């Protein structure tokens, strides 16, 4: 019992470290990708000095953040000032625990699931982590003792809370069609081309718009709207604490893409691969690769929208959330329920 428990813990620990490492690397290179895409959309070259094609630019940026002066405002609440970015970082990394990164892998006679925790309420877990991510922003903004930071923190939290509603309702419609809250089972159901996006197109659209809002990306990046709020909730932050806030945004983007790919686009399932007769391990690895292709597609979408669409005004943002997305997702919910009952 204790021996197997020990082995189990080691296995999960290794898996968690790998997922954590991949998350950080992807987020790191998303920053470079963002700048490259921005340059492409604006007909520039983008960062190309550090290494070939600017490959070492994220490392240089990270080093720069570490060596910058650490500044904490005199009137700031020191403990909460440090706690804010820490919470933002931790909460953005936590969602990765329930996402199925791949099917089972057989190593040394051991069958290892590439999902850290297949809890039977995985969908709700993600929702809980998202709703707790608000604290990082609120505490950081309030502890800075700066009116722009506070205003921005209030904006950010009311925006996140408003869009969580529509997001939750579109998720409920998805859960009604799948009949389970476990992310592992949701992926298992989407074999072949039974992707949930075909059954829940409106739900997916609402979910995607809401995840843009939840990650504070353009066109919903009002919390850090420079023209009105200086630098937003991280106005007073410098050095690596600012780096944490900026980095958490990229991790959130990665996780949101992974969630969308898992819930609506079949996760690691490759349509028709079972007919090729490949070994199970190879299928698993290819599947994980395919999942990452989907994730990168979504990350590209995030960046594409950011450099194409201008920012909303705050009242427009609230109207979209409450008067458009919420009714649409409610109607979607009712229609889904009616179809399920009549079928």
């Amino acid at each position, binding site marked *: 019992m204790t021996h197997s428990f020990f082995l189990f813990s080691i296995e999960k620990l290794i898996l968690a470290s790998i997922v954590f490492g991949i998350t950080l690397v992807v987020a790191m290179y998303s920053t470079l990708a963002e700048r490259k895409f921005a340059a492409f959309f604006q007909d520039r070259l983008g960062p190309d000095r550090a290494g070939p094609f600017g490959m070492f630019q994220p490392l240089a940026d990270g080093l720069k953040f570490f060596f910058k002066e650490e500044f904490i405002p005199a009137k700031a609440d020191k403990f909460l000032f440090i706690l804010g970015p820490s919470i933002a970082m931790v909460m953005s990394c936590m969602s990765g625990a329930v996402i199925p990164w791949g099917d089972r892998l057989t190593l040394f006679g051991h069958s290892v699931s590439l999902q850290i925790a297949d809890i039977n309420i995985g969908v709700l877990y993600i929702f809980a982590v998202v709703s707790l991510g608000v604290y990082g922003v*609120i505490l950081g903004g309030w502890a800075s003792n700066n009116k722009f930071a506070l205003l921005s923190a209030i904006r950010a939290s009311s925006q996140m809370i408003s869009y969580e509603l529509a997001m939750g309702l579109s998720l409920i419609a998805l859960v009604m069609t799948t009949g389970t*809250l476990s992310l592992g089972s949701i992926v298992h159901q989407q074999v072949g081309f039974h992707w949930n996006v075909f059954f829940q197109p409106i739900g997916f659209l609402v979910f995607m718009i809401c995840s843009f809002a939840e990650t504070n990306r353009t066109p919903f990046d009002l919390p850090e709207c420079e023209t009105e709020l200086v630098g937003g909730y991280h106005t007073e932050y410098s050095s690596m604490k600012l780096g944490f806030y900026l980095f958490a945004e990229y991790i959130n983007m990665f996780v949101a893409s992974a969630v969308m790919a898992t819930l609506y686009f079949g996760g690691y399932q490759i349509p028709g691969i079972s007919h090729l007769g490949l070994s199970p391990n190879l299928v698993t690895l290819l599947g994980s690769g395919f999942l990452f292709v989907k994730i990168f597609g979504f990350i590209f979408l995030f960046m594409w929208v950011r450099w194409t669409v201008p920012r909303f005004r705050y009242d427009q943002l609230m109207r979209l959330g409450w008067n458009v997305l919420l009714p649409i997702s409610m109607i979607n919910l009712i229609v889904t329920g009616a179809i399920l009952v009549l079928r």
Partner: protein
Amino acid sequence: MPVFFGIIATTIILSGLGVILSKRPVYSILSLIICLYAMGALYLTLHAEFLAIVHLIVYAGAIMVLFLFVIMLMNLDRPEHLNRSRLLQWSALAVGISLVLVIGSTLYTPSGPWVVAPMGSVHAIGRLLFSKFIVPFELSAVLFLAAIVGVVITAKVPHPEGDTE
């Protein structure tokens, strides 16, 4: 398992003390959030995953954010704003003791509050809510709706010109 319970119980007690002993309201709220987290962990050890997560979403994720909002917007985070009258302190003590008595008395009931089966799962709670407790469940939904409408009505300031933009 006793190790986990020990850690969780210690966290709950320490953070609970933090709620009442902190000089500043914001730290009280943070302690309360930690306390709610630990309670969610306690539910997890009882195999009530659904309850644990909903507990976190509703209390730690929504209601505590509201508390923080009020403290921050009203600028209440100064110790001198706290109402520390004798009457309040004594009544809080009385309420606390009676709460402990009520919860403690369940320990001595013959059937016991012990969890015999995993009843905190989505299926178990869903079945209970839509069979045995369907009427209270639907009634509480109506109650919530009434509360929402009431808030909208009271919060709506009538415009003198009549237009809302």
